[in-house]
Structure formats: structure tokens, C-alpha cells
């Protein structure tokens, strides 16, 4: 009886996971195997047509590697920009730390649409940067800053930077300051301490931040569509296109699943490569 009552305690959690995680996935999985239809989201019976369509047409199939590359590039940029920021905040005095924290988190307070639109104002052909350069007489044709991977990666990195900085910061702040002192007393200089001690010890934060940013970047829709102007084709954009514009639910579901599984595999490989035996 007692045991039974204890088992009851997991019911709320189990229900939550079932309705919000398992059920949607099962629905999408089922939908991806449905037969397509005209004038209707999906037809009768089951087929593999959604998957076939994706892999047989380069327009769709090639969006997958370019999405992954875009995600990786964004992650890399976030790491390179975010690590010094996190390191700086972690070592700042308490008064500065609050301010810097605020600056890093402030993008989260502004909606993603506004932030992406802001980038189009900056990077557009008649945007702030191009028109300034033109007025200064430095260029006579606008630089291709937008509607390409460069612009999208830049904007994505800005949008997701806080998700890199926060795990890095929590990882860096949990390092015992005596560890760096110990390394110093053993004769290590600043850069050596960073390379041999601080950075490797912060690896759990690097790992968490990279996974977070990668997953967010490849599934993002607003930024690539605004800054990329439909000229940068990511799988996520094609999924939305299939579901909403073409009204083909099985094909959209199949693409969404392919993207999710591929992203999962990439994350697993990354976690495997950066595995820490010491934690």
C-alpha cells in the first residue's frame, strides 16, 4: 500500500513528460509517414513519400548540411566571443559583475524579431554600414553583408550569445580560486594557467553552451528568414514552408524529424569528442 502511494507521486511528472514530450513526438512521427494529398494537409493511409521527397531533391537535401554548418559556425562565433566575456565577468569585482551581467542578458529582454530586424537596419544594402561607407567614398557598390551566411551567422551569434555566456560563467565561477593560485605557486604564468588549468576545468560549461547554442541556432526561424531574406535556405525554413505555405503536413513532419535526428547525432558526437573522464 505504502509502495503504491509512493508510486503515485511520480504520476504528475510522468503525465507532464507524456503530454509535452512524448505525445508531440509520436504525433509528428505518425504524421511524417502519412500519405500526401491535394487541398488537404494529409491524405488516407501511410507512405514514405515525405522522406523520399527530401532525399531525392537536392534543393531540400542540401539544406541539411548547410543548416548544420550554419549552426556550427554560429556556435563557434558565440564561443570565441562569449568565452572572454564570461572570463571577464567571472573575475570582475562584485560591483562590475552586476552591470556586466545585465549587459549580457539585456538582449533576452528585447524580442528576437526586434533584434533580428535591428540587424537588417545595420547590414542592409542601404543600411547604416553600407550607406556610411558609401558616403565616405570608400565603396561604390554595397558590401554583401545581408542575405547571405555571413549576415545570418552574425545575427544568430548575437541572438544566442547569452546562452553561451551563462553556462560558461556558471562553470568558471564554480572553479576554486585556489586552483589558479596553486598553479602559480608551481611556476605557471598567466597564459599557461589559462591553457592548462582554467580552460580545461571550464569544459563542462563549454560543452553545455555549445550544445545549447547549436540546437537553438539550427532550429531558429525568425533570424534566418529576416536577415537571410529567404536566400539562405535552412531546413527549419523549409519545414515551416512545407507546413504552412505548401500545406503538406507529412512532408514537413518528415523534414522536422530528419533535422531533429541529425542534430541529435551531431550533439552526441560532440559530447563524445569532448568527454571529460574526470567529472
Amino acid at each position: 500500500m505504502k509502495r503504491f502511494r509512493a508510486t503515485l507521486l511520480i504520476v504528475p511528472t510522468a503525465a507532464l513528460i507524456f503530454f509535452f514530450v512524448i505525445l508531440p513526438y509520436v504525433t509528428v512521427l505518425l504524421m511524417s509517414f502519412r500519405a500526401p494529398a491535394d487541398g488537404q494537409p494529409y491524405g488516407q493511409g501511410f507512405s514514405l513519400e515525405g522522406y523520399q521527397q527530401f532525399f531525392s531533391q537536392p534543393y531540400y537535401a542540401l539544406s541539411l548540411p548547410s543548416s548544420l554548418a550554419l549552426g556550427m559556425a554560429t556556435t563557434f562565433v558565440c564561443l570565441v566571443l562569449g568565452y572572454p566575456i564570461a572570463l571577464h565577468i567571472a573575475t570582475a569585482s562584485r560591483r562590475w559583475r552586476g552591470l556586466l551581467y545585465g549587459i549580457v542578458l539585456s538582449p533576452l529582454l528585447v524580442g528576437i524579431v526586434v533584434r533580428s530586424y535591428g540587424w537588417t537596419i545595420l547590414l542592409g544594402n542601404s543600411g547604416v554600414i553600407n550607406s556610411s561607407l558609401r558616403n565616405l567614398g570608400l565603396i561604390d557598390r554595397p558590401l554583401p553583408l545581408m542575405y547571405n551566411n555571413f549576415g545570418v551567422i552574425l545575427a544568430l551569434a548575437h541572438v544566442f550569445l547569452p546562452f553561451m555566456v551563462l553556462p560558461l560563467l556558471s562553470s568558471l565561477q564554480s572553479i576554486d580560486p585556489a586552483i589558479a593560485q596553486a598553479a602559480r605557486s608551481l611556476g605557471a604564468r598567466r597564459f599557461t594557467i589559462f591553457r592548462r588549468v582554467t580552460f580545461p576545468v571550464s569544459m563542462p560549461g563549454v560543452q553545455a553552451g555549445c550544445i545549447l547554442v547549436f540546437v537553438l541556432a539550427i532550429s531558429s526561424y525568425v533570424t534566418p528568414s529576416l536577415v537571410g531574406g529567404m536566400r539562405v535556405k535552412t531546413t527549419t525554413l523549409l519545414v515551416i514552408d512545407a507546413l504552412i505555405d505548401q500545406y503538406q503536413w507529412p512532408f514537413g513532419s518528415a523534414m522536422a524529424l530528419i533535422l531533429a535526428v541529425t542534430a541529435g547525432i551531431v550533439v552526441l558526437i560532440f559530447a563524445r569528442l569532448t568527454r571529460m573522464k574526470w567529472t
Partner: protein
Amino acid sequence: MTEVSLRSLQKFYGKTAALKAISLDVNHGEFVSLLGPSGCGKSTTLKCIAGFEDITDGRICFDNKDISRKLPEDRDIGMVFQSYALFPHMTVTQNLAFGLEMRHVPKAEIAQRVARAMEMVQLTPYADRYPKKLSGGQQQRVALARALVIEPAILLLDEPLANLDAKLRDEMRGFIRDLQKRVGITTIYVTHDQNEAMTMSDRVVVMFDGEIAQAATPEDVYNRPASERVARFVGNANILDLPIARTDAQGTTVTLPGGATLQITRPAPSGQSRLRVMARPEQITLTSADLGQLPGRIEKRYFSGGHVEYSVATDCGPLFVTGPTTQHFAEGDSVGLCFDPARLWPLPDAESAQ
């Protein structure tokens, strides 16, 4: 072996003085403990010697060479931290090799020296373990070996045993002491545990409020404390405030309540009519009520294994006495207290000591 000397070392954090011009000489191969209550500046002293804190004024010399301006990485010190501060991502072997790699010691020699150090602290079976997979005592020994394997000029330890349980602490105490004697390295050890300081050190430095109150052998600190505060901080102290009957060439004679006199073989500070003397609990013996120099009544009795502790009410206030277990007094018994005048220590007057 290196001689360390602190000359009028001063450290301010903003406007507050953590160290008020302390001077101390530590000899070749000596084991010196810094002992004092929390916040008295023990760790600050150590951090200044290690170079982690800039000093406000004064000098720090190793072998008479001023090293006050040197960076920590150039000072050639071995340091053991309270938190051990092992590198979590390195195995025991890698932790020990780190300092040697920084010194560009050839690979073969590193392997040799690491193996020797590992043997010294009995960690050879754990060579490939990560610190998280070691017990507290084992981590402690890794930290010690890591500090010693570079054969530093001096060894600094900041409360290295504070995180261990009592039994392990006793064990490590002997271990560190033996190791230090074997290696012969000049060592400065910070602790707030007076027992630890007494049993391990050649010399104990008692600190209060950023100042050195006394620097002397454990025996001297215990039996001949420089002030009442030292007396009370190091072990239990009974302080008796007694009127002076006579001062002459033989010393000072004081009178106990009840009329008995004690002749202390040391002159009293001149111009005083009373003398404060210290008696340690084990320096007072209990006898039957009619025999003692001072009558008293047992208030509390605590059996503590090897001996019995009593709190005795007397006309000099409550006194703390320890006696052998072969002697039995019960709570409420009337007893006599006997003092050995040779072991009574006259304390300098609080005002005149200032």
C-alpha cells in the same frame, strides 16, 4: 634550505590593517606554526609570503634576499591549500608532474621524481586516479606531494587538516611532521588548532589582531605565555589575582585567600601590590580538605578517559583542575588545592604589557 624573514610586514585592505608591522625570522629547516583566532591575519601572512597579496609596507626576505616584489611564480614556494586545490582534470601523476613541467625538467627525470614523491606519500596505487575519486586524506597527500616534488625553498600550509575528520587529522599530523623532518624543508604552517600547533612545531607564533603576541617553543608558549590572552588562547588557564606579601632576592611571595603563602622564584613587576599568576589545570593537585593550600568544593566532574577534569569553586573564583583517574572526588566534595610554586607563571600586567 632557506631562511625566511619578515621585516615590519604590513598589509592593509583599504583602510583596515590586516597585518600591523609584524617581524619574524624562520630558521633553516624550522617548522613554525602561525596560531591564532579567526581573522587574526594568519592566512594573510601566508599569502604575502607566497606573493598572492601585495604588501603595503615592510620586506620579505628569503636567505636575506628581498623577494617582496617577485611574482608568486618566481618565488620557489610549495603551497598546500585548505581546499587542496588539486587540478580536477589531471590524474595524481599529472598533478605531481605539473610543477616540474613548468620548470622544464626533462621528461625522464619528471617520471622519476613523480614516482619518488608518490612513494613518499604512499599514493603509488592511485597514480592514475582523478582527484574526485580519492578520499579527503588521499587528496591531502597529493596536495602535499605536489608542493614538495618541485623541491621548493620553503613550504607553506594553510590549515591543511581542517577538512579531515579527527582520526585522520591525528594521523596526517604525524605524517606531515615526519615528512618535513625527513625533507628538512623550512615550513610555515597556519592553524587555529592549538593542539596541532603544539605537537608539530619547533616554534609557535601566536597572533592576535594582525600582531604577533608571542613567538616561542611550544613549551614556552604553554608554560610561559607572554600575556594573559596567550595563556587563555593556548590551552586552559587558571588566572589567580593575588596580593604580594613580600618581594626580595629570592622572588615574590604572594598570599592565597585563607593565609597560605606561595613563593614564586621570579621578581614581580615593580610598583605592583598584586600579581596575576597562571596555573595550568594539570599543575594543580587535589588533596583532602585539611591538607591543601586553598580550600575548594568540586562543582563539576567530567571523566575524559585518561584523566578526570574538575571545576572547583574557590575564593579565587572557579578553577579548572585535572587529576588522575586513580583519585576519586565526587561533585559537592570539599577538597584542598595544592600549587607547585616553581610552575606558577607570573603574567605581565595587562597595562604594562601594552
